[in-house]
């Protein structure tokens, strides 16, 4: 299981849980698992999220590996100028 930290307004949708546990070894499994276990998060997951894994930010790459003890933080999907 990987501990995933949610940002505040997302946590509110996950019954106030700031951290949720998901069975995942990579980014795709993580996103799929979140949508499956926490359907209330689905609208935001569909709009897009960024995921910080051990301090590096990932947007898309499904195969990005996630270790059991990785620090995983969900973020609004980042955009730049």
């Amino acid at each position: 299981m990987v501990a995933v930290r949610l940002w505040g307004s997302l946590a509110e949708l996950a019954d106030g849980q700031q951290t949720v546990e998901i069975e995942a070894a990579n980014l795709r499994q993580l996103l799929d698992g979140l949508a499956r276990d926490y359907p209330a998060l689905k609208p935001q997951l569909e709009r897009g999220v960024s995921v910080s894994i051990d301090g590096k930010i990932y947007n898309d790459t499904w195969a990005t590996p996630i270790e059991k003890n990785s620090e995983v933080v969900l973020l609004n999907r980042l955009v730049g100028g």
Partner: protein
Amino acid sequence: MPKDEFQARDFKIVGTRPLRPDGIDKVTGKARYGADVTAPGMLWGAVLRSPHAHARIVSIDTSAAEAMKGVKAVITRADFTYQPDDPGLADVLDNCMAGEKARYDGHAVAAVAATSKKIAHDALDAIKVEYEVLAHVTDVDEAMKPDAPVIEAGRQQENVPAGLSENVTSRSKYGHGDPEAGFSQADLVIERSFTTAATHQGYIEPHACLATLGADGQGDLWVCTQGHYMVRNTCAGLLGLDAGMLRVTASEIGGGFGGKTHVWIEPVALMLSRKAGKPVKLVMSRDEVFRATGPTASSSIDVKIGMKKDGTITGATATYRLQAGAYPGAIAFLSAMCGFAPYDLENVRTEGFEVMTNRPKAAAYRAPGAPMAAYPVESVIDELCQKLDLDPLETRLKNAADEGTKSAYGPTYPAIGLKATLKAAQSHPHWTAPLGENQGRGVACGFWFNFGGDTCVSLMVNPDGTVSLSEGNPDIGGSRASMSMMAAEELGVPLDQVRTIIADTASLGQNEVTDGSRVTFAVGLATIKAARHAIEIMKERAAMTWGIDPEAVDWHDGAAHPAGPNAGKFPPMTIKEIAAIASNTGGPIAGHHEVNAEGAGVSFATHMVDTEVDPETGAVKVLRYTVFQDAGKAVHPDYVEGQFQGGAAQGIGWAINEEYIYGEDGRLQNPGFLDYRVPVASDLPMIEPVILEIPNPGHPYGVRGVGETSIVPPLAAIANAVSRAAGVRLTSLPMSPPRVLAALKGQ
């Protein structure tokens, strides 16, 4: 160690300051920008825009315009028969050509293509539009009230609390700990409200394109944009075309700063061309640029920070309300993430609201959301320092985030450079220089993420051994020079042997737009890897020639060398020698690399500024300005400095002069450079750039993006300098003379 991890090394070319390769074209007027091309049989396009802030379009009568001599096509929304199913794309379409309603002053309602500019404009006058004027709202706080006129119902996300207007489309919250508990440990808590005005990116080149679209669905588009792949994908999605049938070529680009990461006129030009059966050139006027493109969000913000006597921040909260313009999708969540990012805080909470108003759809502007996030936070920290008699740099250092800090937006930082910028500021002579009467010195920190994204690069070794590099990101600030430098460095060849071009959408795979300070990082990464790929091929070719194992070949100084005990004694083969026999050893030599470059490194800056306030007029003069920023690795220091200076200058404009002014009627009152005043040469001092290099662990050369962070601290740095000079805290941007005078009088 994976190959894209940073490895310390000595550079031969990277870090030097060679002349830029596109320089001569640009100083002689030869460089071709968006409006500089023509096509045989070309028509001129023009767009009719709403004079109302909010109005239902009852009817549009184009018959008189169509009957005019020389008019070849008139279009309205009715001509866009393809309905994109993606709500984001539908918004882009509606913004390019209004459907049921005109949502802001300047919203496009019809367009014309004619044989001359003059006929096109005369034809616009002949189009009759009947409007039913609706109540409007342009102020963010007003637009949030439950009884405000609603721009579009049904767009609210599930995260918005009840009781707010439907104009509030989203809310995001970040933070950790318990700020209330933190405030109770503080010796002083300051809570203040701030506002910032909407500002425009202000690129000097208006949007322009030349479009050709046939009835067979094949098209060509020449356009000034930060991302021609984005333009292709968006236009294809809006018009129901196959992306592969539309070839988009990026012109030279006359500035963008985020404002050219969107589509504004291109689908209109394509539609006009399809209807007229001829190429159509469409160029915006400055008035149109101000009224209908850009700007950034205006904002209204509350910040509360508690501090101990020793300078420790015990608790911090911020609420950001950002005005998104006529469609959902501002960047309040970025404000909520960035505001406290420079600090190591136990108790922090931020909240961001995005709010629709009757203004042009807000566009990205250099580090979107971050300048207005840093401004109130850094202002309140400065005021706490003043009241607790603390040194503002020392206090920031005491609270500064570092490697291992849990950031205010969640993740734990890897190696970062904030402390280095603060220490450099402390030891710089600027910090201790004397100040005169009515003068004040301000400092502020800023943070930005930087980005990676889809990137595709090809590197061809030509038969004579020279190198052609194709990349897919428009060059705004000298990136072709940087790419040539990285390719030459990796290949070990002289810089003048490499030429970089920006390829069109048919020549390379998908490339993310030039945004988020991504180019030097992501395209640089792909360039280095494409060069390494070519080197592998050249090593194989040399090995084949020598009849040895490719593993027994080394590459350095632009040549293959036999290496290892069993390689044999062969003289090195240079890139030229290998290229000359390429046909005999397997054919052309080309390296390429395709990647979604993730893992860009964050960046920090500290700015220091001296200002003088004229007590008679309220005018603010910037006397001295120094930028301290972490660049990771400065590939071409001249252009890194240029990014620092340019961002600071835009921030100075935002702080002191620039402002979208709306009248009671909801119309923009200052859509021109005379009344929307960007800084001119005589407004500014020299801007001293101090480059720090704390390598990004995720890039082979340690590169971080540099383009955006420089606009984050100036708003606060100047507000702090002005507040100290004036002896009163200013909480509203811009700090234009009347505002400063009012603050001085209210003292």
